């Protein structure tokens, strides 16, 4: 048994091993980001649609489903961040004397700022959870945010989202975070196929386009909610 764990810890200690874990957790987070966006777009289908969706998530598997998802996501985010910080520190240490004249031929600005876009997204996730999940510093847990759906009392997700994004600073921070997430995804999505050894001469250009398209889809889809509410007065 310990032989297996020795090998696994050796795998994690290696450069490629850590990168593969970053790619796998990244892939899980990419799937989550897409699902999260599709679910949230239900806000445009009216109060009942998104409230029912919220109630479904909260009550799936007798309320256990949401915790399984949360713990899974926490593990994915944790591994993704710890491994990339370790990798970045090694990368900095691998070139102590910087070039007097720095030049880039093919690397994108997004690829060179992954650690900074990533850490900003981390700060955003913490804010986002405090804002809409834990709901601190606001009234979203109060009785004013309860509504009845099919005779049951449920949380009024619709009202919370509309009120949340009616405050300009929050909406602006959400939009900035989504732009950085899009930058992160534009390098990350195609990069994970390379790290997992799946890219070929034929498929690599396709993966690259797919990554850019996915980044665009996420930024447009997610930003549409605060922009519709704040700028176009949707639901207000």
């Amino acid at each position, binding site marked *: 048994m310990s*032989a*297996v764990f020795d*090998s*696994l810890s*050796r*795998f994690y*200690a*290696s*450069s*490629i*091993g*850590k*990168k*593969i874990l970053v790619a796998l957790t990244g892939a899980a987070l990419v799937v989550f980001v897409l699902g999260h966006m599709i679910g949230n777009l239900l806000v445009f289908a009216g109060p009942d649609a998104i409230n029912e969706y919220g109630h479904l998530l909260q009550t799936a598997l007798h309320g256990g489903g949401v915790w399984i998802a949360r713990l899974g996501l926490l593990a994915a985010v944790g591994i993704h961040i710890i491994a990339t910080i370790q*990798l970045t520190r*090694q*990368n900095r*240490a*691998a*070139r*102590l*004397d*910087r*070039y*007097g*004249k*720095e*030049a*880039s*031929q*093919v*690397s*994108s600005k997004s*690829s*060179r700022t*992954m650690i900074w876009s990533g850490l900003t997204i981390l700060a955003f996730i913490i804010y986002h959870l405090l804002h809409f999940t834990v709901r601190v510093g606001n009234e979203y847990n109060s009785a004013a945010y309860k509504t009845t759906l099919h005779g049951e009392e449920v949380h009024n997700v619709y009202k919370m989202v509309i009120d949340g994004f009616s405050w300009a600073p929050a909406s602006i921070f959400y939009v900035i975070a989504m732009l950085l997430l899009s930058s992160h995804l534009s*390098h990350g999505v*195609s*990069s994970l196929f*390379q*790290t*997992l*050894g*799946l*890219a*070929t*001469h034929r498929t*690599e250009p396709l993966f690259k386009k797919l990554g850019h398209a996915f980044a665009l889809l996420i930024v447009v889809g997610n930003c549409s909610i605060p922009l519709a509410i704040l700028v176009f007065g949707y639901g207000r």
Partner: protein
Amino acid sequence: MSLLNLQLKVWRQNQGQPGHFQEIQARGIPDHASFLEMMDIVNERLIKDGSDPVAFDHDCREGICGMCSMTINGIPHGPEKATTTCQLHMRKFRDGDTIWIEPFRARAFPVIKDLIVDRGAFDRIQQAGGYVTVRTGAAPDANSILVGKEVADAAMDAAACIGCGACVAACKNASAMLFVSAKAGQLNSLPQGQPEKDRRTLGMVRQMDKEGFGNCTNQYECEAACPKEISVRWITKMNRDYAIASAKEAFVGTTERTEGGE
């Protein structure tokens, strides 16, 4: 032929001491001199003036040995695609240009003097598995193993690597993945390399990590700088080979043990 007047900013450093840039005026350089010939002219003048000439690596001067290095204006081997420093000509520069000349910078490539770095880390990676142990014997024996034309061509593409280290110098993280993947991938593609494939991949990657190179972030600056145009698809293959070899090592154990056990 026209003559160029250039402003050089050359990295000067003695082993183990901090380095600095020295400004050198290079006047009257013929535009069809190679970059190394330009350096020769500059050094002749430095020697005549009684100062220390600039130390730089060079050998065949025909683009096949991998000895010449130098990062020129931030790009290893200079601005021309698929060209070593010795094959770069001064006609690629304009009169009055400022040229930054630096060593291949990486912690794993310590500076010996000025522009000369110790690339011994590459030799140690090769020794960790970049070979086939089996005796291939005389030519008829080698030919008894059939190799498909496509496989042979692909292996030859990887074998074009001259081990110069430009990939490390160009990488934002000083990673050696392109070099290691070309050397491992060449043998891992061929039937002669199959018996030691897993051991080779694990050994070379572990030695690479031990040498203090950075990690690949899939930005492909290495491929753009490579004088032999080695493709980053070799890195894809090494990632795959390494994942498979690690899984086999963790859950199956080494080949020798399974075969040796009764």
